[in-house]
């Protein structure tokens, strides 16, 4: 970041550029998904349609794992969709920034709303409050243009190569490091740190809650904790 996106073209490239670090995440994650799907008995066509239609790696892995365990269809769907419920919160958080875009564009953006496009965009919008609606739209477009083709391509390679990827490459580490790299730049003030701590503590406390609902409960508590800390700091500053 740092650069102010003055034109639409530079806003697109800024969004693109800010997502380049995630090539190191998306490529191994896609490879891994392609390989695991093939092992689970998916054809290449099924794997590719799933990966480009759902575009949500974690929930795709959840669905595969449950399918392997022979879980009933309804349970698989409920559990995998629960993994994606956090995206409703991303969707809400983008309303103040992208809500004035035309409906067709919002419908398109919704399809490309993933952890990375949400996180990098909201960071850029917060750091550059002078960004116009058009620039915000281009930034978001740049963010998913950077990652989506790689996600689809690496899934395809993974499906072809299959189980031949050596475990020494430690591709499994891609997911946790992704969420670390997405959350670290968001720690811009004490209330953000407090919210992050509540999020982690809450998820740990509610880890037994079914359908990964513990994460969502923790997220609501964390948002409240963040806002309350912010209010407390403001009140203190007033009396100081």
């Amino acid at each position, binding site marked *: 970041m740092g650069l102010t996106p003055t034109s639409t073209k530079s806003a697109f490239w800024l969004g693109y550029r800010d997502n380049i670090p995630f090539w*190191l995440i998306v490529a191994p994650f896609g490879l891994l998904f392609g390989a695991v799907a093939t092992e689970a008995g998916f054809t290449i066509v099924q794997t590719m349609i799933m990966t480009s*239609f759902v575009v949500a790696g974690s929930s795709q892995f959840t669905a595969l794992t449950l399918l392997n365990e022979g879980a009933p269809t309804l349970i698989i769907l409920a559990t995998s969709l629960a993994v994606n419920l956090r995206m*409703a919160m991303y969707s809400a958080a983008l309303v103040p920034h992208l809500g004035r875009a035309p409906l067709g564009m919002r419908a398109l953006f919704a399809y490309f709303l993933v952890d990375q496009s949400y996180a*990098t965009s909201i960071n850029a919008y917060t750091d550059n409050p002078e960004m116009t609606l058009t620039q915000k739209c281009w930034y978001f477009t740049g963010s998913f243009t950077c990652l989506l083709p790689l996600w689809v391509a690496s899934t395809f390679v993974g499906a072809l190569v299959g189980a031949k990827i050596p475990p020494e490459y430690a591709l499994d580490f891609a997911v946790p*490091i992704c969420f670390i790299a997405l959350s670290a730049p*968001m720690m811009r003030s004490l209330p953000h740190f407090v919210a992050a701590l509540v*999020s*982690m503590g809450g998820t740990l406390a509610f880890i037994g809650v079914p359908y990964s609902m513990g*994460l969502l409960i923790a997220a609501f508590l964390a*948002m409240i904790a963040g806002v309350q800390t912010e209010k407390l700091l403001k009140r203190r500053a007033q009396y100081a």
Partner: protein
Amino acid sequence: MPDPYKIWTIIFFLGIGTYLIRFSFLGIIGDRVLPAWFTQHLNYVGVAVMPGLIVPFLVGTEATGGALDAPRLLAAVAAFAVGIWRRSALWSVVAGISTLYAMMYLIG
């Protein structure tokens, strides 16, 4: 071999359902003004969701295939520390991956 009918059903409804989740607020609320208290909470969505997503990997669950071993744990700490310090996803990823490979080489 899983039943192809079951696979296609899951792909179809997971795709539609995920899209509707993503479309929800952005699509339906659009340019209507949200109450101030609501947007104030929305500022914390990222820090309220993403750190929590790391937890299952730290403690280990059935789905994550056990807790992180020493190299992965050190790499996670390095990625977090450098990411906060530089406020950069790039440096966070670089620190995480280089620590992971260095530690795997050193401790095996």
